[in-house]
């Protein structure tokens, strides 16, 4: 399985290594560096790189490459999924998973990696269990530990590991019992030149933050569960109950977790909440190009479209852009040719627009393709698929929890071709 792990930063330095079997020399990473050099963008590095004796499987998260060394046959997704889980755990522990965060917490990182893998095979990856084994560093605890000499490491085997609910730690106590659920839906869409939708899909997740005392047993039911076409669950969800009654019944882990991710069936028409009017043109022989962009709301069910961000990779021939936005700010990076316009909120009365000219390299021929526009936005209190949570009930505990549900719609991979 996983032999060794190297963490490599954007500039190509190995800043952490961990071996689970005999030590593999870090020179094996040279093959990886070669691949990085060959790839023009960091994203283009192939995830699986064969070398004569090993195989390198890497994932890129927050500008850090996690390179796992494999020696024999293993499902590549197994390794990839695990590496992502490692990153998620680090994020959970340190807030972010950057080079600095890892370097600052080397010891905790090492202890975590030691617990997560044994002989290259995953041992404990459940955040609730890990947190019982190794307490996350907090400022207070660090201070206390340095004074008293106590440790971050738990002495007992987490009981969760052996129980029937391995994802939940035991002996949870809160004074305020609360359970919050966020229904977040993302619209993936490709809109063509004329504004018609080529493909649009809704992908949603329900993220939960559950802080409940004891062993609560929750059931969550939807007004319209038929909407959910394809779902994947946190292991805590009882699958049979869902199959039979379309009710989510589960003993939740403690803290934050992703309860469910779903896909809304592609048969349903997706309401596209934003339209883009564009006029980007380059004239043959002239060193000027015209750029006009107007955004407007469409099918938003009366909700405001917020945090709108437009970005576009302009053709290589563009030297500079001289634009004026009606609201928000825009930046254009002449090196990467990346235009981004932070629009903010769309006011239906006064539609935001970005107009102006682009200067082209003189003598260069007209770029033959118009750039695609990537859009980001947020709509609060709306689940665009129409999914609604009906009710949340708790069994098994006596107190009354505080319950809350929030809906949000975001742009996923939302592209407009021009």
């Amino acid at each position, binding site marked *: 399985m996983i032999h060794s792990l190297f963490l490599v930063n954007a500039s190509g330095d190995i800043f952490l290594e961990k071996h689970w079997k005999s*030590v593999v020399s870090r020179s094996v990473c040279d093959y990886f560096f070669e691949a990085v050099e060959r790839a023009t963008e960091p994203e283009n590095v192939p995830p*699986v790189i064969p070398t004569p004796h090993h195989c390198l499987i890497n994932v890129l998260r927050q500008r850090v490459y996690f390179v796992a060394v494999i020696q024999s*046959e293993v*499902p*590549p997704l*197994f390794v990839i999924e695990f590496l992502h889980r490692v990153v998620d755990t680090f994020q959970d522990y340190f807030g972010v998973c950057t080079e600095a965060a890892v370097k600052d917490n080397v010891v905790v990182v090492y202890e975590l990696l030691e617990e997560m893998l044994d002989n290259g095979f995953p041992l404990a990856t459940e955040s609730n269990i890990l947190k019982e084994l190794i307490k996350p560093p907090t400022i207070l605890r660090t201070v206390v530990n340095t004074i008293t000499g106590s440790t971050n490491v738990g002495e007992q*085997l987490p009981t969760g590991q052996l129980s029937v609910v391995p994802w939940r730690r035991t002996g949870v106590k809160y004074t305020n019992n609360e359970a919050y659920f966020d229904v977040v839906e993302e619209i993936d869409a490709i809109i063509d030149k004329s504004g018609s939708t080529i493909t649009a899909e809704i992908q949603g997740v329900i993220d939960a933050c559950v802080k409940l005392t004891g062993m609560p047993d929750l059931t969550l039911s939807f007004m319209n569960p038929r909407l959910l076409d394809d779902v994947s669950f946190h292991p805590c969800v009882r699958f049979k109950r869902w199959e039979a009654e379309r009710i989510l019944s589960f003993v939740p882990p403690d803290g934050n977790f992703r309860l469910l991710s779903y896909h809304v069936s*592609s048969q349903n028409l997706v309401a596209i909440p934003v339209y883009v009017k564009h006029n980007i043109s380059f004239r043959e022989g002239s060193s000027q190009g015209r750029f006009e962009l107007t955004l407007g709301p469409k099918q938003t069910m009366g909700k405001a479209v917020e945090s709108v961000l437009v970005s576009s990779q302009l053709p290589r021939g563009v030297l500079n852009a001289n634009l004026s936005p009606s609201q928000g700010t825009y930046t254009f990076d002449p090196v990467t040719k990346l235009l981004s316009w932070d629009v903010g909120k769309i006011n239906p009365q006064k539609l935001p627009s970005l107009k102006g000219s682009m200067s082209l390299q003189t003598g260069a021929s007209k770029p033959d393709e118009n750039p695609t526009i990537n859009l980001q936005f947020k709509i609060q209190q709306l689940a665009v698929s129409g999914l609604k949570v009906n009710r949340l009930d708790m*069994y098994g505990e006596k107190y009354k929890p505080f319950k809350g549900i929030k809906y949000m719609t975001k742009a996923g991979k939302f592209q407009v071709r021009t």
Partner: protein
Amino acid sequence: MLSPWFLCRNEDLKEMLESNKESLKLEAMKRIVGLIAKGKNASELFPAVVKNVASKNIELKKLVYVYLVRYAEEQQDLALLSISTFQRALKDPNQLIRASALRVLSSIRVPIIVPIMMLAIKEAATDLSPYVRKTAAHAIQKLFSLDPDQKEHLIEVIEKLLKDKSTLVAGSVVMAFEEVCPDRIDLIHKNYRKLCNLLVDVEEWGQVVIIHMLTRYARTQFVSPWREDAVFDENSEKAFYDSEEERRVDQSKPYIMDPDHRLLLRNTKPLLQSRNTAVVMAVSQLYWHLSPKHELSIITKSLVRLLRSHREVQYIVLQNIATMSIQRKGMFEPFMKSFYVRSTDATHIKTLKLEILTNLANEANISTILREFQTYVKSQDKAFAAATIQAIGCCATNISEVTDTCLNGLVLLLSNRDETVVAESVVVIKKLLQTQPSQHSDIIKHMAKLFDNITVPMARASILWLMGEYCEHVPKIAPDVLRKMAKTFTDEEDIVKLQIVNLAAKLYLTNSKQTKLLTQYILNLGKYDQNYDIRDRTRFIRQLIVPNEKSGALSKYARRILMAPKPAPVLQSAFKDRDRFQLGTLSHTLNSQASGYLELSDWPAVAPDQSVRNVEVVEPQKNGNAVKVESRSESESGSESSSSESSSESRSELDSDSDSGTDQKKNTKPKPKTLNIMTKYILIHIVLSISSPFFVNCMCSLLHLCVFLACQFDAVSWPVRVSLQASSPVFVPETSHELLHRMTGKGLSAQYRFTRQPCIYGNSMVSLQLTLSNRTDQALENIHISEKSSTGQNIHRFNAIGELNTTKEDEFSVSIQPAVGELLLPITMSEADFTKEQGNTNTSYWHADETPTNQPIHFSACISRFAGKTVSSGSLVLVSVALKDPDAMITINTEKTVMGSMLLRQVKTALTNSGP
């Protein structure tokens, strides 16, 4: 090698480690771990560190363990000092300490301690704590890699651990099995069913390993389910493997899937919903390799869902989809749009998506795909644009209807400004023209025109080759092109030069009048070229085409050699033969066999003995046995038990199941093997007490009630009201209702019928006759009603009142839906009493309604009366129906309002709809 600064640091650290203060030691260890993490050498400190191995401080101890595991291999002698500490820790009462001691002990790669490790593993394998046993399973692999000679002993331990029923151990021991003895498939037989059943509850990583192992296992043990639907490519291959007589047997006997094969498919299916992408992929490959072809489609959605995940996940999943989509287009065609390329995708993702779109193309969707491709061709990512052009070429060859459209599109691209696009188009056009050259002289002419503007060598070479090959179609242009080339010959790239020589030779043979001199000039230039390939080729061509004394017989055939018709190249996917590797594996991704790859065997022609998997379990029910199950669930106690049980996990149920399995194992009795399809009936009387909230959920079976009412209208005098003596029903309907259909019940079907007999278990219960029949060909075991049936206090409680647990592994929720009338006991009373009671409205509510009846009701009397009492509480129910043609007046008197109104509604509908 170490800098002086570093040495001094080392001295410091040593000092800190030798101090008495725990905190100082801990600090030192933290710094040392920091060094290890950076890849610095800290082996010098070994002696100082090892001393702390027995520290009381857990964190310090753990850090020392980290250090030990890292350096023990280099400092074997010193490492031995720590062994005794671990041996002591192996006996610690704390399971965490036992486990971690075993972990470290087995991770120290020192050959001398192999015997100690072996002993420790054997001991830990029988530990009470499943966590320690799991660690033992991990240790097996470590010991095996340290000393492969221990294999035999380790297999014994594996065998023992495979029998373990803990979900914690299952994944790890199968991993050990895969590493140590993947060929000992016989060890799996007895554990196969258990593994299948535990699978859902094993932790996700273990699931992946087990699924892969079971895939391999199933391919050796079951016969192919693919025979009936022979749409599949591989079936032609299959036919090759099956001998003649085999075939005949197949035809006579329809394929019946081994129930164990089915068990595996059924138990892995829910895992498609896992959040772990590796699990989903593992299940998908299992279905791909094992399921009947018509069941394969269920994996599509899940695979497409994974495409939303991280870039790296997408890459692997797309690769596997690419392989699948070659063989089975239909699977992914509805999801075609999910493979549309976005400009933000990474290059390798884009190419894979393109590959899949090409594979999915057929006559119906090709226009959509081509339109999409047009967008891609204009992409700023030129490498991607080039790949798109190749994809267009592929589509054009695969689907003959669009060949012309594609060609025209490609010709348009020839005037594109970008070199790579043009070059790629030329190359693809060349390949396409080879398939049908005669009709396309226009295109060749067009290309000749563009030739001067094309600079990419590969494209130039391709055009020249086309000119030469089809010079007869363009007799005027070809010599002119050759003339131009003669001028620029020296400046061309090697690949172009070779084609110039080729072109010259071909023209010389077909049109020597015009080109003789030109050819000689070019051959002279080639003769003195710097590149030896070109010199060689020139020499060869000269001898071949220009006849002289030395050239001999070959030159006679020059024309036939050079102008031979060439087979058109086959444009095929790079994923064409990837399916020789098991999907989802590293080997599949690399398209070359990785070390440790275990070949997936072909289906056996004849299934090996299936009884090897039988675990001996006593059957509680035999043919025709009547089993009496009594589930008393009074309303209050029922809700209490349900609330207490709802907190306990459904998973615990499984544990209890497997426990009962062990109990049964003790008094074993070999199961008789039944070959023929056998049907057996088991009659079970289920006695349920039914309480009032129950009615809320009742749905009516109207007709029954109606008949029931009709037969009770004879009034016999029973004057005393207090006793409310129950009478026996005159008519008991034979109709039974479906409780569990045999399809949903996986072979078990259940029907229920209200017997309308007083219940022998208690006066407040309704008796119910349940008929269970087995429509499968094997015995079903241990059918019982699960105790934890109630699921909540709300309305749904009723749904689960009767839950049948059929076979050990399956559980079906069923619901019984009685009509209100079934819950009443008829009583006899005189007409006078009836009216008296009816008049006694103080305590009872009455409901009345006027109903128009569709058909005249032929009762002898105008008023029909029925008296009854509810079974559970014994409260009186009086129904009278007065007929005033065409209307009927229904009066119902009862204390139970809810029931009354339901009864009223039912009687009403019954009268309206059906009549008597």
